[in-house]
């Protein structure tokens, strides 16, 4: 068991914590969809922003201790950023989707081209984060 637990995901950034605002607009849901797809693709792992907002210690401490983390807000209101600040979690990488030129609206039919654009921007924003190896939060890595 301990041998298996010590295996680490492939890739250079598989343990990036991804926190999406997941808000009630197209850009909020784009943040969510990008986080889901990047998790499925092994780029990082989506984590629960609501748990941090609730100040549950496991979630808050995880966000504080993780070496590589990105917060994705749909718009400049910045709910994800504010949630982290309220919990005392420092921002490491940050993206606002409307800054990519995507207009905020209530159309929840997300198109794949826009999702890919957001995912590419997330990857770009994560370039300055520490890469996996030695300090990742995953077991034994």
């Amino acid at each position, binding site marked *: 068991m*301990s041998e298996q*637990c*010590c295996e680490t995901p492939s890739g250079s950034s598989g343990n990036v914590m991804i926190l999406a605002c997941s808000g009630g607009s197209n850009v909020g849901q784009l943040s969510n969809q990008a986080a889901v797809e990047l998790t499925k693709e092994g780029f990082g792992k989506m984590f629960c922003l609501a*748990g941090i907002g609730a100040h549950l*210690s*496991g979630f808050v401490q*995880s966000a504080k*201790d993780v070496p590589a983390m990105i917060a994705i807000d749909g718009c400049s209101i910045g709910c994800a950023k504010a949630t982290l600040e309220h919990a005392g979690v420092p921002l490491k990488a940050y993206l606002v989707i409307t800054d990519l030129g995507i207009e905020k609206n209530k159309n929840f039919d997300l198109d794949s081209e826009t999702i890919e654009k957001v995912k590419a921007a997330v990857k770009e924003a994560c370039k300055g984060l520490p890469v996996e190896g030695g300090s990742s*939060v995953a077991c*034994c890595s």
Partner: protein
Amino acid sequence: MEIKVLGPGCKRCQQTEQVVNQALQELGITANLDHVKDPIEISNYGVFGTPAVVINGEVKCVGKVPSKDEVKKWLQQAK
């Protein structure tokens, strides 16, 4: 005092348990120390990775082996 080390039983989890034990002994504190290895039970704490240390229900660190001094500080705060 209730202390839990969360982790499936790997080397770093065992190191964490040892550090906690040493800190308890050096401070002369008696506590219930439990090593939680069940992944479902671990997931209930909402931690992103292991090892993790929980003292009286509060998660103190995640994904790293804490130093003995860190653990001593947490133990003294929890007394």
